[in-house]
């Protein structure tokens, strides 16, 4: 009775052709049928050759207890979203089955079904109905929703005139006031400002802990996962790599992302803009040396493919510890107002005279952004090693206890 969700051997196969070319034409079907009727028949019966198939999920099984908050982590393309879509009944598994006990609501995108021409009030009702609420239910919660979204003043304005922040707040508010037994949430915390994110998180926490509902939750925000989740599932290439206590799974996941060998960033899954793409990011040791040492100099080199002239760009690189904490983030905006780049392949270097990091391996996130929006962002672009050097000049060992940042000091007694 305790399991709210039982997932048993779920697999999902996509036809690569279908994905790459989202719809096929009638002609293709007719031609294929004419050319090789038997092959086609066999293909339809599901016995065709395995080529052209892509298993987004392969034999995924786990259970979620009632009242539990479970996080799902994995890199882009690991199958997280596919799993959520299957559990939300948007798409069907190819094999396997899942049992869900209780009313399910899923929030895979904020504001699904919002119509720009309709007012805030109208959209609350429409969106509520799409998410499976009854009108009386929405009536009852209407004031609460509006208060949560802080959009009282604009209720009768079409949402196309809303700021994106307001839009997202209202959309999340509707979904947050659903009262399902099982709530499925995909990365919604990535939207809105800091303040609102906190509020959303609080709401999810309340739903789970206060009301004893089950929450299934995908996020790239490891901090949020550690705080919110009891347990986590780590998906890798469509299979379950690990299920267990959230902190342990997050640690394993962070550790596993270190083995980044391929330096070509173009092969990484992400959604770059059409303005500029990051192609390569490397840390170059000082001349004549082979390594970068604690407190020593280092040069960081970006190779960019600039497609449109860029003004006021900001380039940045962030150091994350092996367990996923952001240790240091450096970017051009901090010291230089803006970088102007003309189209073509461009190399930008950043020299750091003294890299104040403890020896160890750091996982780098790199980005190029304009003032307001990212052009390209690659998470875990590469890993860099900082070697030991006697930074403090005393030969003392450094312990975790002393944190990750090195800094010289003067003591007086």
């Amino acid at each position, binding site marked *: 009775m305790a399991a709210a969700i039982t997932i048993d051997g779920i697999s999902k196969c996509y036809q690569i052709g279908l994905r790459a070319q989202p719809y096929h034409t009638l002609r293709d079907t007719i031609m294929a049928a004419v050319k090789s009727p038997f092959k086609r028949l066999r293909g339809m019966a599901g016995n065709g050759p395995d080529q052209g198939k892509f298993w987004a999920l392969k034999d995924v099984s786990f259970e979620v207890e009632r009242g539990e908050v479970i996080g799902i982590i994995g890199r882009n393309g690991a199958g997280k979203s596919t799993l959520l*879509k299957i559990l939300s009944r948007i798409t069907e598994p190819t094999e396997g089955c*899942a049992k869900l006990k209780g009313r399910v609501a899923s929030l*895979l995108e904020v504001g699904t079904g919002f119509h720009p021409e309709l007012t805030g009030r109208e959209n609350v009702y429409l969106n509520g109905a799409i998410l499976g609420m009854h009108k009386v239910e929405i009536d009852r919660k209407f004031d609460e929703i509006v208060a949560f979204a802080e959009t009282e003043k604009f209720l009768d304005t079409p949402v196309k005139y809303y700021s994106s922040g307001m839009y997202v707040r209202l959309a999340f508010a509707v979904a947050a006031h659903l009262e399902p037994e099982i709530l499925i949430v995909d990365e919604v915390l990535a939207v809105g400002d800091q303040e609102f994110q906190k509020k959303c998180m609080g709401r999810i926490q309340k739903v789970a802990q206060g009301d004893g509902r089950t929450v299934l939750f995908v996020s790239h925000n490891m901090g949020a996962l550690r705080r919110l989740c009891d347990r986590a599932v780590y998906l890798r290439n469509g299979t379950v790599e690990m299920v267990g206590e959230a902190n342990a799974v997050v640690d394993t996941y962070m550790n596993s992302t270190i083995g980044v060998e391929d330096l070509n960033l173009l092969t990484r899954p992400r959604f770059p803009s059409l303005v500029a793409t990051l192609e390569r990011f490397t840390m170059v040791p000082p001349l004549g040396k082979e390594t970068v040492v604690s407190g020593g100099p280092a040069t960081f080199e970006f190779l960019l493919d600039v497609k449109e002239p860029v003004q006021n760009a900001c380039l940045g690189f962030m150091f994350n510890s092996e367990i996923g904490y952001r240790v240091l983030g450096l970017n051009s905006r901090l010291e230089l107002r803006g970088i102007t780049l003309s189209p073509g392949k461009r190399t930008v270097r950043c020299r750091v005279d003294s890299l104040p990091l403890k020896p160890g391996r750091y996982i780098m996130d790199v980005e190029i952004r304009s003032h307001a929006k990212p052009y390209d962002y690659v998470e875990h672009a590469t890993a860099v090693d900082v070697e030991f050097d006697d930074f403090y000049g005393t030969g003392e060992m450094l312990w975790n206890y002393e944190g990750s940042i090195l800094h010289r000091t003067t003591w007086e007694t």
Partner: protein
Amino acid sequence: MEAPPQTPSPAQTPEPASDNTAEFEIRPQRGWVAIDFKELFHYRELLFFLTWRDVKVRYKQTVLGFAWAILQPVMNVIIQTVIFGTVAGFASKIPIELQVRKIPYALFSYAGILPWMLFAVGVGSGGNSLVNQQNLLTKVYFPRLFVPASVIGAALIDTLISLAVFLVLMACYHVAPVWPIVFVPLLLLLTSLAATAMAFTLSSLTVTYRDFRFLIPFMVSTWQLISPVGYPLDPHRQWIRWLLRLNPMYGIINAFRSALLGQHWDFPGLVISLAEVAGLLIFGLYYFKKTERRFADIA
């Protein structure tokens, strides 16, 4: 091994309505997929909201606004009356019983446009409805049947407005209603079902084969030509008449003229229409349910 009784929230208020019924299984479905009427009933308000959205949004940012609901059929009637009635001279070819009652050609033509526009919108907008709502299909679960159905709902509301205009026009021409007018609601239902059946089939076909986006407008205009929308189609040769009756809209349009204007009933035509609509509806539902499971993957 069995977990102890759940105690974390003993004070939680039970929700009996949804709690004991809502266990379900997700597994690949094969073959016939039953229609989950209970679920359709649970989501019934969504059908209303989707329809309401379509109606509300349709005339936003237009100067004339809702007047378009009236203007569209009226403009069609004027064009048809001028071209078919006056220029082509069909005005004198309308059935004799209507000529006796001094029914003007405008009313004759309007009575055909009324069901035809409902059907044409169903085929046209309904056919594209799933593709146009692909963000909904890939992001949230709800009964997908409501997407094409809500388009018909919105078209039906326009038709009711247009029917009101028709009645006003009848009064202007001093044409008294005939008693079979009581069948108009049933005929509207039949037309809606015909449109819904086509919308189910075409919308699911369009998701898979986008060719239908281009085929549908062509289909609609061809279909209008073989339907007696703008002119009386009353061939002298029996076999041609039987051929025409195979078109479900033939029987429906004639029935509308019988109910609204007193044209002789073409019962064989109506029966054929009824049977065909039933067949189309069953096929539409079957094909829709059959392809539904793949909508999110290919939309």
